[in-house]
């Protein structure tokens, strides 16, 4: 990940020890693979060293040998060997890759494209990207296969590659053709440029502004602060559930938990958010807890009446209730 800052590492293992662990891990990986594809442990160490650095040592510089060994033993041995063989120019491996994962690539391209022809173009470009049109200094093709670590499945990685390539192509098209029909990504960029979220509670009419702009600002600010104070896991769950519109079962799947666990966790987060919002209102306006609770209830009740027009896609409404009126 490019965005993580590199900190000074406190290594518990020496580089030599890490190399030994990686070499032993390469031996075990080849032993686990159904076919070694003429690969040797030495040819694997370079890739494994890079992968270990990326997924283990960067996030946990003091990782122990057990952590490193556990990670190496969890790699997809067969798929990593297949990719390494493809990188070496093994045509048999390429054939296997194409036959084994052609359907996955087509499916992912179809899902990321708006038309069948675009999906075909995307799939073709994926194979070209995987093979690499340019050559590196050592003569090998500079394809995207070099970024496969084996941490996830090869199919999942291919789907992710197709998705990212589709976004890149969309962005390129958006830059070339500046039309009014901006894509969602373009709107996303625009939203980043705005200073804060106050615009979200803009009223549809001047009357609404006069009636509830203060409450809207207060509640919005309180919610933003409460969300920011949540733990990362809780915040991600709230974003997946409310922002991405996933079901609890799907949100739980992203987090690796069962639907019931996600449901319990969401209930707990509701309580935490409520407490934080009430605390914010009490602090900002000097209200008592009952006043803050009553104000929150009135705002929510007012919004509840507006749920139906909101769901039917009518004009956006905003908070109109005022704590003063309660």
């Amino acid at each position, binding site marked *: *990940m*490019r*965005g*993580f800052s590199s900190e000074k590492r406190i290594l518990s293992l020496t580089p030599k020890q890490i190399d030994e662990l990686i070499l032993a891990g390469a031996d075990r990986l080849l032993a686990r693979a159904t076919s070694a594809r003429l690969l040797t442990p030495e040819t694997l160490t370079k890739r494994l060293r890079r992968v270990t650095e990326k997924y*283990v040592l960067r*996030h946990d510089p003091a*990782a122990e040998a057990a952590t490193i060994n556990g*990670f190496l033993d969890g790699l997809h041995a067969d798929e990593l060997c297949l990719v390494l063989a493809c990188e070496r120019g093994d045509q048999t491996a390429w054939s296997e890759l194409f036959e084994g994962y052609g359907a996955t690539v087509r499916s992912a391209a179809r899902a990321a494209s708006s038309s069948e022809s675009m999906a075909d173009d995307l799939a073709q470009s994926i194979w070209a990207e995987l093979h690499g049109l340019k050559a590196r200094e050592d003569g090998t093709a500079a394809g*995207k296969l070099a*970024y*496969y*670590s084996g*941490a*996830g*499945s090869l*199919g999942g*990685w291919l*789907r*992710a590659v197709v*998705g*990212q390539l589709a976004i890149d192509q969309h962005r390129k098209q958006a830059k070339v053709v500046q039309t009014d029909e901006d894509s969602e990504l373009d709107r*996303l960029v625009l*939203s*980043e440029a705005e200073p804060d*979220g106050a*615009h*979200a509670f803009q009223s549809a009419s001047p009357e609404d502004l006069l009636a509830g702009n203060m409450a809207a600002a207060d*509640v*919005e600010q309180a*919610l*933003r602060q409460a969300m920011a104070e949540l733990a*990362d896991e809780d*915040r*991600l769950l*709230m974003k*997946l559930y*409310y*922002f*991405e519109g*996933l079901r609890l*079962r*799907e949100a739980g*799947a*992203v*987090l690796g*938990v*069962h*639907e*019931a666990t996600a449901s319990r966790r969401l*209930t707990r987060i*509701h*309580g935490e958010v409520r407490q934080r919002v009430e605390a914010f209102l009490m602090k900002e306006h000097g209200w008592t807890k009952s006043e803050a609770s009553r104000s*929150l*209830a009135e*705002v929510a009740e007012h*919004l*509840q009446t507006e*749920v139906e027009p*909101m769901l039917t896609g009518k004009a956006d409404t*905003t908070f109109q209730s005022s704590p003063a009126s309660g």
Partner: protein
Amino acid sequence: MTSNDKQIDVLMRRYAKAAPRTSVSGHLDADELSAFAEGSLPPATRAGYVSHLADCDECRKQASALAISSGAVVRTEESPSTAVEGRSFWQVLVGLFALPVLRYAAFAAVLLIVAGVAFVALRRSRSDSQMIALNEQPIQQRESAVKPPAEIQDGYSGNKQLNTDSRPIPSPQSSAVNDQTAKADTDTKPAEPPATGGLMKEAPPAAPVTAEKKAAQGEVTQTAPSYAPAPPGDVATQKKQENYRELQPGSGISGPRQQQQKLDTADKFGQERERDANKDVARTDDLASKSGTPASVAANQLPPSPRKSIDEKAKGPMRNMENNTNAINRNENLGRVESPKTTSTGGSDRAATEEAQTRSAGGRKFRRQGAAWVDQKFKSSMTLKSVSRGSDAFHELDSGLRSIAQQLGGEVIVVWKGKAYLIK
């Protein structure tokens, strides 16, 4: 979802709709996204990615799409079962006694208790009904047992009761009766006493009795004291009947009838019992009218029957019903046929004197008249030729005639070849 949760839910939905999309500078690459979506990252690495995904809408979209498409939903659906399997024994044990489980266990316990009480109650009622059914048999026996005094007078139930008991109970009175019977039998049928003795020995093996039958007999034996007392005049007769009952093990009418009663269903039980009682009464009346002999006399004529009943017993337990039916018929016949013979057993002496006055020799019958034996073929119109023993004329007589004269002794009148001889 509580009302408070609902309020926050509404607020959050509106906030999510209006909130600005955020993105951070760096994004996760395809390998990181797929590894996160498949949950194959070390915990520390995953925590860093979670923090990024919570703030980066673009990466979150991709990660969620990958997670859903990679089947993570299915994996997490199956995870609870694997989580349960992975728990230690102690955790499982603690989980069994956790409050959320115990509240269901309480209901289950209540259900079990109710089911147990219902089972015990139903079982008791069933066993009570069985006891009622079992107790009715002794009552039935008592009912049938009350009859003997009346039947004894008719000379029929004695035969029936003879067949019920198998164990001989020695008593002076019974031995006396047995002696008398043996004596009478010796006179008429000398071979019978050994047969009677053999009966006593052979009875247990020759009469295999089922457990039910034994139980029925035991019940009869136990209920015997509850019999209604016999009329004073019939005490001796009853004792005689008891002796004959001892002499005839296993062969009885009441035994099979008990067996039949046990086989009867509950609804037919009363009807059968009533029908049997009517049959008994009718049979007894019939026999009484046919035989017309006192019970005591009939009882004295019974010794031949034990051997017959034993012979039939030897046929096997499967024929008990038939045997007993035959025994009833035979006893009836005995009562009828043999009763004239036994009308004067007091007169067995009379029969003996009768036999003493008539003798047979050389195929001829002679009657005692005075001091001489007279051939029954002799007629007064015949002329007698007097011959003295030892005379020449005597020796000239046919050897057959001489043999008759020597057998009878004294004066003998013999009709020989149409002539009458007076041999002195």
